[in-house]
């Protein structure tokens, strides 16, 4: 019984941390502050889902957390790549090749 309350306290603390991260997401002066806050918010979402899954004993919530961990990382890299190259079409390996040749205008 007491473990239930402790898990709920952990969930509450993670939710508070998420709220703080959300305020930085809205207030961040640069793009990179926002990307950082988004990534950290996603990590805390994963933690909240894991705690909720253990709290209620539902195994499916943990699966959602796993999926969210993968999507969070890919989304962060995709946002950074888009705002650096203004395109998601070309692979990063070809971008570095183009830069080596000297035809790119990304620098």
């Amino acid at each position, binding site marked *: 019984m*007491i473990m239930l309350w402790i898990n709920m306290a952990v969930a509450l603390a993670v939710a508070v941390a998420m709220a*703080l991260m959300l305020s930085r997401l809205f207030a961040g002066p640069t793009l990179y502050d926002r990307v*950082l806050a988004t990534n950290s918010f996603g*990590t805390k979402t994963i933690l909240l889902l894991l705690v909720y899954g253990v709290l209620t004993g539902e195994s499916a919530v943990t699966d959602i957390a796993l999926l969210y961990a993968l999507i969070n990382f890919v989304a962060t890299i995709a946002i950074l790549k888009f705002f*650096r190259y203004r395109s998601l079409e070309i692979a990063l390996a070809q971008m570095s090749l183009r830069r080596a040749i000297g035809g790119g205008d990304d620098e």
Partner: protein
Amino acid sequence: MTPDALLSLALNAVSVALLAAGVVFVLAGAIGVLRLPDFYTRLHAAGVTDTLGAELIVIGLMFQTGWSLATAKLALAGFLIFLTSPTATHAVANAAHRAGLKPLLSRHQPAHPRLRAELEAAKKSEAENTIEAIETADKAGKPVRTGKGRAS
């Protein structure tokens, strides 16, 4: 007290200790991201504490679930966070650095002598520009603009 109850109590105690440590790290990271003055310091607060706090919370939850499928899933989630969180932090830092975002060295004066000399030279040229602007404005008979910034 039976041995089973004792084991359960010990597991719960370890779990509570790990969860408390993880919550402290997560909250410290969040407050640091909110309050630190510069992007790179915020990155330091978020990147370092997020990884450790998340791992501590995941391991603390693993002590509660015992040997089951949920433990394996928790271990997998912790492994993913352990791999992706520092990589994402590094990617954000690298992108900001390549985009030319300069770190805040000091609130008042740069620590490096060369940067300090550059700052002094910039201040000097700005003052000269202002004096020139005032003189040209006097010659033209226009009212003198006060305040900072480039007068042109």
